[in-house]
C-alpha cells in the first residue's frame, strides 16, 4: 500500500517536472526580449538591459532553467512585471476566490449529478432516466461561456436576483458556480448511473431485496456504497478541473480569480505571472488526479492487492 502511494507520488513528481520544463520552453520560444515586449516600443534601452540582467534573462537557457526550478522549490515565483507585486501575493488572493467558486460549483454539480444519476439508475431506460440523461448530455455539450451568459442574462440582468459580476458577497458566487458546475454535473450523473446500474444487477442486491428491504433501503444503503468508488474518483478529478478550469467563467462574471489573473498575465505579456499561474493551475490538476488514484487504492481492496 505504502509502496503504491510512493510510486504514484513519484510519477506525479516526474510529470510535474515535465510540466515545469514544458512551460519554461513554451514561454522562451516567444520571439523577442520579454522585457522589451512588455515595456513597449518606447522603452529606454538602459532600463531594458538592466531589467533583463536583473531577471537573469541574459544567461544561457539551461542555467535559467535550473535557476527557475530552484526558485520554484523555494516558493519564489518572482515579481509581476505589470503589477509590480510579488506573484505569490497576487496568486494567493486570486486563489481564494477561485477556491470558493470551485467549492460552490462542486456542491452544485455533485448534488445534482448524484441525484440525477441515482434516479436514472433506479428507473433505467424509463422516462426519468431519459429525461435526466438528456439533460446530462446537454450539460456536457453546453459550452461554459454560453451557460454563463445565459444565467447572467436571465438571473442578473432580467430578474435581478443575483449580482452581475464581482466577488462582493456569497450571492456573487451562485451564478458562476452553476455555470461552471453544469458540465461536471453531467459527467457525475453519467458515471453514477453506469456504476449504480451495474451494482444493482449483482447477487448481493438480490439478497438484500429478498431479506425484505425496500427499494430506497437497497439503493441507498447497500448499492450506493459499492457504486460510489468510481463516482468519487470522477468527483475528485472534477474538483481539480473546476479549480484550474474557471478561466472563462471568471472572465464572464469579472471575478478576480486565478483564471482571470492568467488572462491578465497574457494580455499584459507578464512573463513571471503567466509562468506561475500556469504552473500552479496544472499542479492542482496533477495533484487532483494523484489524490483520486490514492483514494481509489485506499478504498478498493482489488487495486490494493494488485500493488
Amino acid at each position, binding site marked *: 500500500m505504502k509502496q503504491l502511494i510512493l510510486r504514484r507520488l513519484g510519477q506525479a513528481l516526474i510529470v*510535474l517536472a515535465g510540466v515545469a520544463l514544458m512551460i519554461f520552453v513554451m*514561454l522562451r520560444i516567444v520571439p523577442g526580449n520579454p522585457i522589451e515586449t512588455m515595456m513597449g516600443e518606447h522603452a529606454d534601452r538602459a532600463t531594458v538591459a538592466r531589467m533583463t540582467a536583473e531577471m537573469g534573462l541574459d544567461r544561457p537557457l539551461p542555467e535559467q532553467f535550473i535557476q527557475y526550478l530552484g526558485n520554484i522549490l523555494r516558493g519564489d515565483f518572482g515579481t509581476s512585471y505589470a503589477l509590480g507585486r510579488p506573484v505569490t501575493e497576487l496568486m494567493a488572493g486570486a486563489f481564494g476566490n477561485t477556491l470558493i467558486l470551485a467549492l460552490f460549483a462542486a456542491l452544485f454539480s455533485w448534488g445534482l449529478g448524484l441525484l440525477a444519476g441515482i434516479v436514472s439508475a433506479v428507473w433505467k431506460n424509463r422516462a426519468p432516466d431519459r429525461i435526466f440523461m438528456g439533460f446530462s*448530455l446537454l450539460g456536457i455539450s453546453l*459550452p461554459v*461561456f454560453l451557460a454563463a451568459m445565459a444565467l447572467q442574462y436571465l438571473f442578473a440582468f432580467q430578474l435581478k436576483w443575483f449580482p452581475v459580476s464581482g466577488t462582493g458577497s456569497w450571492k456573487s458566487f451562485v451564478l458562476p458556480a452553476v455555470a461552471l458546475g453544469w458540465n461536471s454535473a453531467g459527467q457525475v450523473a453519467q458515471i453514477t448511473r453506469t456504476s449504480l446500474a451495474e451494482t444493482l444487477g449483482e447477487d448481493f442486491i438480490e439478497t438484500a431485496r429478498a431479506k425484505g428491504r425496500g427499494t430506497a433501503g437497497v439503493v441507498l444503503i447497500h448499492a450506493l456504497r459499492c457504486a460510489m468508488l468510481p463516482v468519487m474518483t470522477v468527483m475528485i478529478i472534477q474538483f481539480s478541473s473546476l479549480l*484550474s478550469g474557471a*478561466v*472563462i467563467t471568471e472572465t464572464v462574471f469579472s471575478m478576480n480569480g486565478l483564471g482571470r489573473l492568467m488572462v491578465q498575465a497574457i494580455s499584459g505579456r507578464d512573463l513571471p505571472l503567466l509562468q506561475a499561474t*500556469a504552473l500552479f493551475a*496544472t499542479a492542482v490538476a496533477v495533484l487532483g488526479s494523484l489524490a483520486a488514484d490514492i483514494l481509489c487504492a485506499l478504498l478498493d481492496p482489488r487495486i490494493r492487492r494488485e500493488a
Partner: protein
Amino acid sequence: MTERFSDLMRRMARENKTAVASGAVILLMLLAAAFGPMMTPYGENDMDLMNRLAPPSAAHLLGTDEGGRDVLTRLLYGARISLLIGVAPALLSLAVGAALGMIAGYRGGFADTLIMRMADVTLAFPSMLLAMVLMYALGGGILNVFLTLTLVNWASVARVVRSRTLQLRDSEFVEAARISGVSGGRIVRRHILPNCLPTLLALFTLNIPATILTESGLSFLGLGVQPPFASWGLMINAGQQYLMTAPWLCFAPGLAIMMIVLAFNFLGNGLLDVLDPRRKKR
C-alpha cells in the same frame, strides 16, 4: 474485427436513430456553411449604421450587431471558419497522434517511454490552459490556432492508438507476417493501421467538438482567431458587452456552437457503440 466498415455503418443506422439525426444536422450545417453565404442578400462586413443592434426581424432574421451587420450572414461565414477549425486540427492531431501511438506501441523500448512521457505531460495540463499558453507563445492567427489545437489534442489519440497497437502486435496474423519476413514499417502500414481505422474514425468524430469548444473558448478570450475573420467564438467575444441590450449577438453563435458540438458528440458516441458492443450494454 471481421465486420466490414459498411456493415458497421448500416448497423449504427439501424440501432441508433440519434446518431443518424446528428449526422443529418452536421450535413445541414456543412451545406449551410458552403452555400449559405451565397444566399443571403448581405455581405459579411456590410455596415448599416442606421440599423445598429436591431433586434431579429423579417429583414434581419437574427438581428444586427454593433456595426449594423446582419448576424445570420456573419453566422454563416463564421460557420466556415469554425467548422474548418474544428476539422483541420482534429485531422492533424489524429495523424500525429496515430503515428506516434503506433511507433510507441510497435517499437516499445525507449521510443515508447519517450513518447508516452510526453503524452503524460501534455495530458497533465488542463486543455484550455495549455491552449492559452501556446497561443501566447505562438501569437494569434488561424495557422497558430491549428498548431495549438494539434499540440493540445495529439496525446489522447496517441494513448488510445498505442494500446490498440499493443493488442494487434501480439495477434496471430501480425505474428505470421513477422515470421514470413515482412518489415516492421510494412506491418504497421498494412496490418496495424487498417485495423486502427474504425477507432480513429470515432476518435476523430469526438475530437472535432472538443476542438470547436477549445477554439471558441480561445476566441472568446480574444486569444484565438483574429478579425477580420469571423469565427463563432469571436462573434461572442464581440457581442459580450451588448449582452444586456442585444442578447442575440451572443446567443445566436452560442447556440450554433452548442448544436454542432452536441451533434458530433452523439455521432461519435454512436460510432463507439457499434465498434464496441460491450459499451452499449453497460
